[in-house]
């Protein structure tokens, strides 16, 4: 799959929302650091209810983009938008609808987790102690609420960061690599939590360099490389399930003739002694019946290896790296 399959125009993206409002978008978002263009004309939109994967290798501009969304750094050009509020112009109002963290979430070490949440969340309005307990419970920190945050491990800070993000029930939660540095159980717990939040209709913008993670929890995703979108769309389309099967028979020549008559043109090829068939619904049982009818011994019919998102990701990022122009050259919008 290549970038050509996707259209990045705003209209197309809105169509993807299927009537749901766009809650988070970026418009030609660009950031230059001296001689480096970290983010290059980024256009993306997140619809309400999406669990949106923001994928890219290290240094691709993910964290810089998130910092611009939160108004921590100023874009060289373009802007982010949360509902109707543009960032940085209307940053304060936008942040009332955003929750999340960037990089490793840090808290005041001499204060308890509960006091950190109380102090930070009250910037955005009153929060009851019950709500604080509720979010601490959601992230599995209820029993550590009165412990000082300074003694928290990286994983516990990640959880506390998610608790802070959730406390005001924002329209969008932006999480920057929330499972990085966690042990396998911690990763599993956080992913489960994200999935649960997604199932409750909370919009989540999940930055990650773990493709498997995005496949597990996201419904839509964008792949970023060198600050540019190289592909975006529903995860199911980004990662097409291959229906190809590998067939091994007692008489491959005869079997090939039979299958060629059945399959669509170009749908059959040979590879390492196997017949590879691009199969549609109901094709495999019919093929087996024909081969049996023609008295061809079937030794094996197995799924062909799928092209995973990871393969596609590596393919796309290596393509764009090879074709990348000078970093400071402006390339706004358009297809990447």
């Amino acid at each position, binding site marked *: 799959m290549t970038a050509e399959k996707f259209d990045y125009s705003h209209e197309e993206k809105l169509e993807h929302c299927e009537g749901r409002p766009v809650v988070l978008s970026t418009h030609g978002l660009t950031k230059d650091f001296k001689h480096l263009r970290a983010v290059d004309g980024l256009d993306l939109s997140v619809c309400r209810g999406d669990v949106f994967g923001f994928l890219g290798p290290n240094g691709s501009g993910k964290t810089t983009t998130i*910092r611009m969304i939160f108004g*921590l*750094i100023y874009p060289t050009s373009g802007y982010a938008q949360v509902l109707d509020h543009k960032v940085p112009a209307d940053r*304060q109002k936008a942040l009332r609808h955003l929750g*999340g963290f960037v*990089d490793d979430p840090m808290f005041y070490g001499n*204060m308890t987790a509960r006091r950190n949440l109380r*102090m*930070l969340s009250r910037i955005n309005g009153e929060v009851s102690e019950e709500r604080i307990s509720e979010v601490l419970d959601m992230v599995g920190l209820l029993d550590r609420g009165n412990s000082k945050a300074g003694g928290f491990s990286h994983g516990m800070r990640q959880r506390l960061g998610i608790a802070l993000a959730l406390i005001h029930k924002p329209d969008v939660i932006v999480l920057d690599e929330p499972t990085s540095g966690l042990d396998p159980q911690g990763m599993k717990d956080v992913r489960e939590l994200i999935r649960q939040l997604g199932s409750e209709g909370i919009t989540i913008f999940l930055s990650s360099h773990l493709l498997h993670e995005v496949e597990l929890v996201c419904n839509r995703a964008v792949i970023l490389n060198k600050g540019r979108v190289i592909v975006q769309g529903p995860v199911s389309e980004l990662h097409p399930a291959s229906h190809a099967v590998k067939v091994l028979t007692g008489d491959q020549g005869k079997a090939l003739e039979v299958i060629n008559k059945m399959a669509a043109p170009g749908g059959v090829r040979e590879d390492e002694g196997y017949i590879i068939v691009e199969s549609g619904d109901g094709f495999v049982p019919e093929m087996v019946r024909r081969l049996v009818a023609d008295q061809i011994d079937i030794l094996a019919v197995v799924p062909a290896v799928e092209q995973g998102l990871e393969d596609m990701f590596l393919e796309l990022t290596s393509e764009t790296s090879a074709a990348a122009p000078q970093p400071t050259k402006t390339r706004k919008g358009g297809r990447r």
Partner: protein
Amino acid sequence: MSSIRREFVKTLFQRRTYIGWGGLFIVPFLIMLAFRFSDGGHGQNAGQADVGGFIMMGVRSNGMFLVIAALFVMSTFFLPMFASMSGSYTVAGEAEKGTLRTMLMQPVRRGTLLMSKWLVSNLYVAICLFLLGIASLIAGGAVFGLKATPLFTGQLVSVWHALGLAAASYLFMFVGMMCVVSLAVLFSTLTDSSLTAVASALGLVIVMLVLGAIPQFDFLKPYLFPGKFMEFTNFLRSPVAWMPVIKALITFGVWIIGTTGIAFWRFSRKDILS
């Protein structure tokens, strides 16, 4: 107000806050002990015109002088150090701990945040001075007694009058320290290291003191605020020498407005990369 309260609570949750306040509370007792157990060997300088000598000689006979002596001793280095530490932590300290981005990801205006931090830093210094004054009064009163106090100009004033003059001196010094806080806040917005900000602010204060002491740089004197800290001694004259006091306050005001203004300008445009 909630923003100021939040910043103050954060200050109260830092151990160094109490170390600073505790240290300043102890200093007058140390000075008192030094005078109490000294042999009075500096008595030969009694009556000299030198202001420092006059204050120091007065301590052994009147506890009121300890209140002024503590301010005199602390004003050239230790108070600027506390003020620069307080101001430097505002932005750079939080940046190096990573909590600045946590705070700025909440819907808070950068200007409001910096203003709150600036105010709380100054409040910290005000409490430092208050504790210094109170501790001096306790230590001096307990050991040397509080009596009618002679001024530099020879008049004797009542304890209450002397307390009023001491309060004015402390207030004056507080305005002077606001310059140091503002300078430190400015450096704090320029770096993500609080130590660098402390060193820069304190270093600049010392450089200005040195410049003020070199005759060749006399033309700079009116603009160098650290050299004006000692102008508080003008309150200990009768009548009060208002002109140098007012000139010093104008210098302080210009520095406070100038450095704080640049700090606001810088912070409102700063990319938070920490």
